[in-house]
């Protein structure tokens, strides 16, 4: 029996210490979908990702990945199962080169040929990274770091990628490159969830979206429909 839903989040409560950030959040992602979670600053978008991947413990609710509960699992075990989180702060290994970072990305893989192939995929997706393969990650520009973070995430051969605000602080040209890379990933079969503040572009490239406001899902639906919705247009698109 095939489990159709790749990721299911049911009624999730989460937060930091005494500060509750998420209140009963529910969402789901199917194989091959490109879903986004958008909302104002501080709504809790990053917290959803951090809770799913185990960096923040959940207080209540269930997180099912490929049908199995991953609530109490550690981040590294979740990565081994095929769920990769790419943080907004990138969390790169600043003292290592681009190549070393990418190789570390493939830490959980046993197959050498697969690793080599993934490395080639990353380099063809981001030719800039190949040019600077021996440069220290700590000396790279913001856009290059985001590319490297995404590349490192791809190296773990994930089934689901959680990308946290890839365009934050980037020049529009670089943002376009990063978004285009995600479209390519999607076309090659990767399932993606995107958290973003750049609402217009995000709704253009994704299939479905969730609007998160004050820790709760305020709205959800197909991205095309959301882009036409009055509330969304007024609050996020300034129309």
């Amino acid at each position, binding site marked *: 029996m095939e489990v159709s839903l790749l990721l299911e989040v049911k009624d999730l409560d989460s937060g930091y210490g005494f500060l509750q950030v998420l209140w009963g959040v529910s969402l789901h992602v199917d194989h091959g979908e490109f879903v986004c979670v958008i909302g104002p600053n501080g709504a809790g978008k990053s917290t959803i990702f951090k809770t799913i991947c185990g*960096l923040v413990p959940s207080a209540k609710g269930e997180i099912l990945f490929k049908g199995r509960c991953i609530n109490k699992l550690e981040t*590294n075990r979740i*990565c*081994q199962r095929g769920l990769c*989180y790419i*943080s907004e702060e990138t969390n790169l*290994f600043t*003292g290592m080169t681009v190549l070393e970072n990418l190789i*570390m990305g493939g*830490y959980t893989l046993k197959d050498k040929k697969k690793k080599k192939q993934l490395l080639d995929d990353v380099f063809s997706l981001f030719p800039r990274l190949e040019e600077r393969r021996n440069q220290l990650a700590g000396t790279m520009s913001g856009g290059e770091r985001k590319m490297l973070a995404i590349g490192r995430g791809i190296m773990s051969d994930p089934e689901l990628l959680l990308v946290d605000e890839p365009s934050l602080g980037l020049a529009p040209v670089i943002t376009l490159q990063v978004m285009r890379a995600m479209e390519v990933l999607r076309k090659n079969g990767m399932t993606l969830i995107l958290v973003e503040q750049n609402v217009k572009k995000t709704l253009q490239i994704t299939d479905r979206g969730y609007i998160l406001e004050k820790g709760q899902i305020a709205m959800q639906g197909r991205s095309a429909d959301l882009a036409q919705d009055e509330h969304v247009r007024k609050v996020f698109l300034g129309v």
Partner: protein
Amino acid sequence: MELLSKRPLVERIGYYLRSPVVLTILGTIGLLIAATLHSGSYILVNTVVTGGMWALMSMGLALVFGVMNIAHFAIGEMFMAGGLFSYFVITPLYDYLSLNPNETLAALAPILSILAGTIGGAMIGVLTEIFIFRPLRRRSREQWIMNTFILTLGISVVMINGHHLLFGSEFKGVVSYWPYQPITVLGTLISFDRAFVFVCSIVMMGGFWIFMKFTKIGQAIRAVSQDEKGALMVGVNLNTIQALTMALSCGLAALSGACLLFMFPSYPTVGVAPLYNAWFVVIVVGLGNVAGTIVGGFMVAMFQILTTVYIGEGWGLVFPSLIIIVILIFKPSGLFGTAVRGILDQ
């Protein structure tokens, strides 16, 4: 201004020669050669032998401090444990050998006992990680460095008194590991044991570098030290890596203790001086800087020996302490630097 890599070779050499690291190293070597020519080659020999071991101990300390942020004040006791385990392996072997002389066994016995010392120390390290530091990590990350400092002081007290209770406070040592004649190097007689210690330290330093740079575990350890969250996100098992780092650090300290058993017999407080030496080196070189401890180990050993020879036996610890005070005032990030910035290098 053009990139340095595009300038002619002579200019590049000149640039590197002016860097503080290279100047310090050259200055140290110069001082060492001058003192040797003046007072005799035993200065060079002793510096190189003890310096190698201090370098290994400091590498272990810098590793555990850089990767796990543990201010370890019990690695002196790991040094003691290394010597102790080695003693308890070599003594029965010697008893056996005195009744049944055997060339190969006589050559292998010291290696076995040093290995036993190293592994014993590493295991104690892993036990402390599993039963002391892991529960602390789960409980709270606040005031981590201070907490680990106090905890390791406690471990130190337990180990020192444990040794005293279980094994007594007599000096447990060996006159020499190997029964061979001293070898002649550059006109000086060096005992085989000392020569072995030197070779061992060079091999271990090289092995350590290769391990950290090229093996998967070594890269994982470096990754954890640079970004713990990032390491988690790529699938590194933090518990395993932390246990391995601790084993490596305590193993290096225990190795020094085991190798130097002929110089430092094992007794409860034998680890105090090596502890201070290791911390001297780590502070002088820069907290968390592992590569620099190699040079730093030799430097501190040299200063101690020069002080003992030229100023007096009891002044051995004074001079390094003075140097540390000066460095902490003017360059707290250490000679070779870390992230800590001082008042004068803003």
